[in-house]
């Protein structure tokens, strides 16, 4: 007897008894199975929570590291770029100026480095259990969000301390953050998939992140770059967001075209990242 094709069953319930699954050899590009991803949302939650819980286990300072890391970076940058190199900060106190940019940048760079190595460090899981592989880089990007939330609190305190006025602009910060998340997911999924086959990327990613930071207006403002070269800066999807963050927190007007370009670029990166990931994910268990 053949499996009756009429047995379609309840398509909404992936885990239902009537659901038919077909396993075939991988064939090129295929669509992201959102339904399946949704069915595994609890695993995404569990892995994200695991990453968060584990990160500061057996450290003395524990979650305080979440605050210490960006604060230290801010102090170093303030001394080197603010005091010694005297990089202009558009009239705002340099510490707040650089911290407002470090906020999304730290999230982004951590997301790239953790998601880049995420699949390889979950090799055990990948080679022993099935689940949509996308969950792995997703959860490592997700785990960074909590740090972002905490360090945003620190920024608000810094603003009070340096007497920077709050403006309604700040309400747009969550939307900008969403853009950064998409951008990080796009680049992160590509890097994680590439690292599975080519471990070279473990060494490439740290350099890449470092260089990328200097190509992004983090320690300097967009205004620091001569007008005729500014379009080059805009090709970097993070430029619009970082500049947008400064506008949101420091109250300077938004550069809508820069943000628009960033949104377009990060959506493109996200689509590319997920598509590439989908194409190669079925090979992971064999090569990891």
């Amino acid at each position: 007897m053949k499996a009756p094709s009429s047995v379609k069953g309840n398509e909404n319930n992936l885990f239902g008894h009537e659901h038919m699954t077909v396993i075939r050899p991988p064939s090129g590009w295929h669509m992201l199975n959102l339904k399946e991803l949704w069915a595994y949302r609890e695993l995404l939650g569990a892995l994200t929570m695991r990453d968060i819980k584990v990160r500061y286990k057996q450290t003395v300072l524990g979650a305080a590291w979440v605050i210490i890391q960006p604060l230290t970076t801010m102090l170093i940058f303030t001394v080197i770029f603010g005091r010694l190199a005297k990089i202009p900060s558009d009239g705002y106190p340099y510490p707040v100026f650089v911290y407002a940019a470090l906020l999304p940048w730290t999230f982004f760079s951590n997301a790239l480095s953790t998601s880049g190595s995420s699949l390889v460090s979950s090799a055990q899981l990948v080679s022993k259990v099935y689940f949509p592989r996308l969950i792995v880089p997703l959860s490592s990007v997700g785990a960074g969000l909590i740090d972002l939330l905490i360090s945003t609190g620190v920024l608000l305190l810094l603003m009070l301390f340096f007497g920077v006025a709050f403006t309604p602009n700040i309400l747009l910060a969550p939307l900008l953050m969403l853009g950064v998340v998409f951008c990080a997911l796009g680049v992160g999924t590509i890097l994680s998939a590439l690292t599975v086959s080519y471990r070279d990327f473990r060494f490439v990613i740290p350099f890449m992140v470092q260089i990328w930071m200097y190509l992004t207006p983090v320690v300097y403002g967009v205004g620091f770059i001569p007008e005729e070269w500014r379009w080059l800066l805009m090709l970097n999807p993070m430029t619009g967001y970082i500049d947008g963050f400064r506008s949101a927190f420091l109250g300077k007007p938004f550069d809508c075209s820069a943000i628009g370009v960033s949104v377009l670029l990060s959506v493109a990166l996200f689509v590319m990242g997920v598509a590439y990931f989908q194409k190669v994910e079925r090979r992971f268990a064999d090569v990891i």
Partner: protein
Amino acid sequence: MSRLAIEVENISKQYVLGSEASGQKTFREMLSGAIKEPIKRLQRLKGSSSQQERFWALKEVSFSVNEGEVVGIIGSNGAGKSTLLKILSRITAPTSGEIRYRGRIASLLEVGTGFHPELSGRENIYINGAILGMTKRDIRQRFDEIVEFAGVEKFLDTPVKRYSSGMYVRLAFAVAAHLDPDILVVDEVLAVGDAAFQKKCLGKMKDVSCDGRTVILVSHNISMIQSLCSTVAFLDSGRLLNKGETSGVIDTYISGMSQPMSEGEGWSGPRPGNGWVRATNIKLHRKEKEVDTVQMGQDVEFIISYELNRQLSDVGFRIEITTIMGEMIYWFSTDYSNTSIRVSGKTGSVICYLPNLSLMPGSYSVNIVCGAEGQLSDRVDKAMKFDVADGDYFGGGKIPPLGTVHVVAPQTWMALGIK
């Protein structure tokens, strides 16, 4: 009439083997290699190099499983059992063919997948459950059952890295055992824990199969397969040789394995190696007479005859003793005993003397491996079979119960602290 739960159609899986020639390299070769290697490696990673050795782990395997059927999969090491399970559980994709199944498959290829040593037992139960596809509600409902089954109540909030390995495995199995899938795929995870826990697991597995759940089980443990499975599939070198009712398939499996593979000339099967030295025969001797059954505790010797196909100075031999199921028990090697075997002429033979044979009663199979100058020259699997009969190994008339262990060893016991 029962419905089909799984239908496997012409599944094949090909792996690409690395073809790096091993051996010593000169410094100059190492230097030039440092430049050429990345290019070669890139080609290999992209899978475009043509000189790669390809290997079919599974070749055109088809079968179907009815709902509620408990299927055992048997076969010697490398027969493709684990690959089949990995394809069924969607961990790796088949190279060709198609599988259709109804419902949800949960696979247990390993216990404790995703356990994090830093997290507590409680946290790990939730994470492991989620990884295996349970919802939070499922886990919460069965939480007490899981904890009780594992017997770790007191240590629930201790990081699992502080658990004893037994506790760790019990907790891991407990989570898995409380899964509720339509189809359960299990790979030898029962080979864990102490005897009492194994019995508990076996009981749990029986419950699962009695519930009318479809189960696919890989095991080397024939008695377990016999007690759990209604049908058995027999894989050999990636092909499905036989699938049917348990006792029938197991009979052919065992008789196939224990056939005195017509010695010497009649050895069939692949003979990997460069062929510089080739084994031509092997015999089991006792007091200079050829035998096929020896007693435990007797002094015995294996005699390997070989031929040389080129001038060689350094030749080595290894005898591997396995159970009929293919579980490796002993390696006896000229390497370990620091013996150098001198050779001359075209043929010769070498003797391996084993005093006080410590194998338990049963049937065993012998593989021969020949090497020359650090390279594999010949390998004959299942070159011969022999039986070990009951014997008084310890001199007290007692030996461990049959089926508990494969080997015994000399031992001395004494009470400490008593003057």
